[in-house]
């Protein structure tokens, strides 16, 4: 580590990256905050005169049943997706430990594939399973049951299942790494003391990987609540508004109805919620770094 003698040089190294990030990431965030207090809209008479409207957009939002409904949809989608991905991801990671190498080499990629594929491909594949004439209904009919219209009757369930399918591999990888760091003798000791498998998981393993669980929950929450592509491609927010989460509503308001101010105020809600989860994530990670090798 050297002292800060060539400050100009350091600045020259940092400046271009900082500039690009500031322009296209920080400025938009500042604009989100600023525009959420204006009457900004894309076309029409209002477009010419940008006016400061104070909290009007927010009042409008709090009164708007579409927004409140959307918040509810976002919560549903996020909570169930995150729970599903984390529980299933942990379960797979846990069960995969110490299994036959060949078995792991065959089964592992099956779980990973959904995650590695681009979002559009994943969404199309998930659609093929859940649509009316899709694979699940075909299988239901083969075993003599009547088919179920997943995408119309249970669209939220359908997109949550699709999202769990696509995202579980990420949590699985995170938990695999965390479980590898749990010393084997700790578990053995617990089992010798007569602990059952579920007791060992709950009272020995979970406390050890507690930080991983927290950070992964935060990360998957952030990835899910901002999710747009999967829902948009599978249901476009419909039927009606049944899967209209906040990102979809924001898109409809801002890009379809050209109410940019309104759309921006919706992004503000997302940004606020995201900031809370982000801060928790950074706090836990920061603590881990202090204990670790980071300077």
């Amino acid at each position, binding site marked *: 580590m050297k002292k800060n003698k060539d400050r100009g040089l350091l600045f020259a190294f940092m400046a271009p990256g900082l500039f690009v990030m500031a322009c296209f990431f920080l400025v938009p965030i500042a604009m989100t905050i600023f525009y959420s207090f204006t009457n900004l809209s894309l076309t029409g008479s209002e477009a010419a005169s940008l006016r400061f409207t104070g909290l009007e957009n927010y009042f409008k939002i709090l009164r708007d049943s579409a927004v409140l409904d959307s918040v509810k949809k976002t919560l549903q989608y996020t909570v169930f997706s995150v729970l599903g991905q984390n529980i*299933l991801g942990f379960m797979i990671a846990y069960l995969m430990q110490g299994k036959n190498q060949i078995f792991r080499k065959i089964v592992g990629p099956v779980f990973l594939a959904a995650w590695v594929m681009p979002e559009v491909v994943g969404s199309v594949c*998930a659609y093929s399973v859940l649509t009316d004439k899709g694979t699940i209904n075909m299988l239901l009919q083969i075993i003599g049951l009547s088919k179920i219209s997943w995408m119309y009757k249970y669209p939220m369930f359908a997109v949550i299942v699709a999202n769990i399918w696509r995202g579980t591999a990420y949590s699985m990888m995170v938990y695999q790494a965390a479980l590898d760091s749990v010393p084997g003798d700790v578990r053995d000791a617990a089992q010798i003391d007569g602990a059952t498998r579920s007791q060992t998981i709950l009272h020995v393993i979970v406390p050890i990987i507690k930080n991983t669980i927290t950070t992964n929950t935060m990360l998957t929450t952030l990835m899910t609540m901002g999710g747009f592509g999967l829902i948009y491609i599978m249901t476009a927010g419909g039927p009606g508004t049944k899967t209209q989460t906040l990102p979809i509503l924001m898109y409809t308001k801002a890009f379809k109805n050209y109410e940019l101010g309104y759309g921006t105020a919706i992004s503000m809600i997302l940004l606020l919620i995201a900031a809370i989860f982000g801060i928790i994530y950074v706090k836990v990670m920061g603590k881990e770094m202090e204990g670790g090798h980071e300077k």
Partner: protein
Amino acid sequence: MKSKKRDKIIAYGILTLLALIFLLPLAWVVLASLDTNANIAVKMPNVTLDNYINVLTSSTNHRAFANGLVISIGASVLTVVLAGLMAYPLSRYEIKHKRLFMLTMLFMTCLPVTTVMVPVYRLFVMLKLYDTHLGIILFMASSTMPYAVWMMKNFMDSVPVSLEEAAWVDGAGKLQGLIHVVVPLMFAGVSSVAIYVFSGCWGNFLTPFLLLRDYNKMPAAVSLYQYFGAHTVSYGQLAAFSLVYALPSIILYVLSQRYMSKGFAMEGGAKG
């Protein structure tokens, strides 16, 4: 130890069942892509390669893939260069508030880009970057930058300063030292970052969907979606298009796994 054996069988059973469920959507895309008259459910194909031939010979698709390549390569190169430069002082110098800076970067990595899309659109219209590949490249680069800086710094930390010092003694400047000594030693790291950004851009649907308008400028992510949404969709070709488009992501993922493990093996550059 009978119960242990039973537990093991149950574990294998659960994993196999889960894998079969996870396989269903993938089975469709693979089988349908090889089928002369595919439908939307899984079925045994009348094997043909026509779907692939159609997808690979269509000039519209060529353009979509080329657009995707321009955007993804552009963004990866820009991100690697800028993040590499930024990471150098962060790795080699004591900087005030470095910790705060790194934590801010970490915070930025986890903010969903959805939240900034409306203002970005507005900004791009103002700057005449709307509906341009350059705009997409700049936005993709800046939104992946925080994570790229973080990765680059960690990889750079593992390259010992002593090797650079030798170059300085020979009269090389800081930038030359970075380019000729540090970067070659962290080639695995640079590749990982490049692959990370490339895959991110290649798979990104939201950004080009919102920030491009001209059909001819759309990358494969958006044209696949448009193809999927069309009324006269041939499921066989849809599946073949999906797989051809997914292939780079899959290859790069496998490659990155390899680079990652090499990266760890290379850490002791100054030893011996």
